[in-house]
């Protein structure tokens, strides 16, 4: 289980997250919703150890990891697909996957792991030796998500996988996410601006507004009860 307890994050004078708590159970997908700048990315970055946590604590299966550096948290089974097309752009698709696998759990042998990715996204097999920076946005997103899943993580953070993508690609990527969630049975935290979409694939949801949790609960309830208030949070 992945737990966030009363975490506040501040960059210099700007506090971007205030006393946020969240709990992600294995085998479930937890959606973090909110408009641009609500603090979704900061929450995920705090969990993976690259945001300055001012107070509160983060626990992986009860172990307090707040003081543990990011690269060791990754070794504890965390995978974080960061926002903003974060890839090693000069490196080829395959090398991106390889590096991520290498520093992951390596639960699956490399050839099998690679084949799984290429079976899932055949286009990546075609582009295997192309510098990943030269791929289209959708293809880059596929690489980013595959880099996270190829690690065989115990906790998976996905930051806006739909960002700036065409609807057809979005649905393809979401199909993969739901599938992976079912197959792996791990805890997934999904930050997403597209509320309806995220609530449909998740079990629980947290709505952030200006760095605070303003609403949380069962995804179905959130989806049904609060369509109006959700819209208000966005539009």
């Amino acid at each position, binding site marked *: 289980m992945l737990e966030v307890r009363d975490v506040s994050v501040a960059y210099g004078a700007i506090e971007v997250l205030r006393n946020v708590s969240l709990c992600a159970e294995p085998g479930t997908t937890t959606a973090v919703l909110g408009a641009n700048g609500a603090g979704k990315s900061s929450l995920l970055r705090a969990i993976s150890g690259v945001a300055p946590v001012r107070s509160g604590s983060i626990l992986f299966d009860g172990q307090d990891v707040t003081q543990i550096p990011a690269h060791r948290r990754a070794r504890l089974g965390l995978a974080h697909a960061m*926002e903003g097309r974060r890839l090693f752009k000069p490196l080829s698709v395959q090398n991106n996957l390889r590096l991520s696998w290498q520093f992951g759990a390596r639960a699956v042998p490399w050839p099998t792991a690679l084949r799984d990715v290429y079976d899932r996204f055949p286009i990546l097999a075609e582009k295997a030796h192309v510098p990943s920076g030269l791929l289209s946005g959708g293809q880059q997103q596929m690489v980013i998500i595959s880099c996270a899943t190829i690690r065989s993580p115990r906790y998976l953070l996905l930051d806006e996988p739909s960002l700036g*993508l065409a*609807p057809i690609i979005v649905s393809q990527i979401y199909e993969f996410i739901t599938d992976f969630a079912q197959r792996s049975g791990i805890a997934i935290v999904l930050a997403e601006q597209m509320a309806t979409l995220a609530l449909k694939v998740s079990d629980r949801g947290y709505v952030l507004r200006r760095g605070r949790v303003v609403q949380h609960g069962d995804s179905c309830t959130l989806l049904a009860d609060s369509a109006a208030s959700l*819209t208000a949070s966005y539009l």
Partner: protein
Amino acid sequence: MRRVRSHLSRLVRHPLAQAALVLVLAAISPLLSDGSVQILCFVLVGIIFAQSINILTGIAGQISLGHAGFFGIGAYGAGILAKSYGLEFYLTIPIASALSAAAAYLLSFPAGRVREVYLAMMTLGFGMIFFEVVREWNDLTGGTMGLPGVPSASLRTLTALGRPVGVATYFVILLLATTLFLIIMNNITRSRIGRALFAIHHSEIAAGSLGISRSGARQLAYTLSGAAAGLAGGFYAHLVGYLGPDSFNLHRSIEVLVVAIVGGLGSIPGQIISATIFTFLPEKLQVFAEYQFIVYGLILTFSLLVMPRGIAGLLLDPPRFIRSAPRTRAGRGDGPPVPLRPVAARAPGGVVLSADGVTMRFGGLTALDDVSLALAPGRITALVGPNGSGKSTFVNVVSGLYRPSVGRVTFEGRDITGKPDFEIARAGLIRTFQDPRLVPNFTVRENLMLGAHRLMRGSGLAAALALPSATDEEANVLKRVEAVLRLIDLEAVADQPLESLPYGYRRLTDVGRVLLAEPTAILLDEPAAGLAEPEMERLSKLIRDMRGMGISVLLIDHHMDFLSDLVDDVIVLDSGRVIYHGSMAGMRQDKTVVAAYLGAEETVDA
């Protein structure tokens, strides 16, 4: 400590104290031994030389590891002119300084093409070339044997107009020259020119958005710095009488860097104190000479980290960048406070700014796809859309940071597609950035002054000599600054350095600064991000005031409640395309928009 510092600062900056120091030095110099006066001369040369680094590195933010070259051009220039052409020192020194300035001006062109470490290497290369040339060009410079026989005050071989010039007289002349130089430098740093140099130091892109030409500012900084180093070199030549290449090697460049860093980059009095200390120490302390390299090394390794503002930061209040004369004049309130004038935009067909079919591609990614829009005078248009939909890219295209792949941008009837950012800003189209890009060590008032840069016309000469015309212009701008301060309600903190203020104040200063430019159209990129409720209210009032003045406003934001009662039109971008253009109320009902934001069913299943 703080009180001591503020008293000390006031003393150091008081014109009477400064005049007294100069007079005392001039008066006691005939009473001192030649040796002591000579050391004082070295101190003054060191002060001018350190200021030359201060101009380039401290103020304009350009590193130089080859400044001994400019110093050397001044020294050899003066020496050769005196020795071979028989010119007297009152001619050789100014000519030498001009030669060095010219060399620096030329260097600024290749140097302008590189940044950071590459710039360091280029200046290092320049210094080394100068050193090699001096060492090997025997006919001109005497090569490794050096150039003896330069008319020298110390050696009693210096004459002017047929009369001998002794060390004491030379000292007084040098003292006057140094004083004049420091006055000019002090005036320039506190004029629109100095502020512009600080602006490119802190953020070149932000400086461009204020109408400051990066290359122009950089050329100016190099030229001034070269002139100062050449001046120091010229005086050095006629002081020592012998020039050897080893006086102009990399160690000289490092030494002056040490002096400037210890003094505190950006501070004029700090450099004076530091140059004095570093000239006296090796002369007076044998021990220091022995450990000189070790000391310099330790200082360079740690001082920027431990004491980034040097002696000046320790002993003195930070410098200010507006002269007091225009401030008192503006404060006297000659006439009524200047109201902010409405702008008269040229809007052919009711359109101030228009984009026609703008497409922006990066490699394989299309960030903007055939975007067209038009802004009318006195209207607020919101540009919204999910993350990554191309809003900021659009602002970057319009403001001249990117050249669009296809399409045209027209401002006040003129085609501005692909024009450099500073020209677009000068034309009156001003933008802000997602993060406020202000000069952190400037006060709110000084930052606001920067906004008016595009309107200020005063000449460099007027600024250097603080002529009445420059004072008038500054005073007029200051009155408008006062009006904007009132509008953004920051009068109480107007004279506090921005870095000490909370984020919201910086944001308001950033937006307020735009007003000082008297723009006809403005582009605000997420101005409300990170603001608390009361600050948002102030901001929205400010934006309304802008509309009231007839300015066209394009506003990117995500806070719909902030936008809803503020804007006249909304344009929604999604994946680089305009998917909606109309009223705010209509947008909430629009299926495509709701789908784009919330990711509704229709879109996913499509």
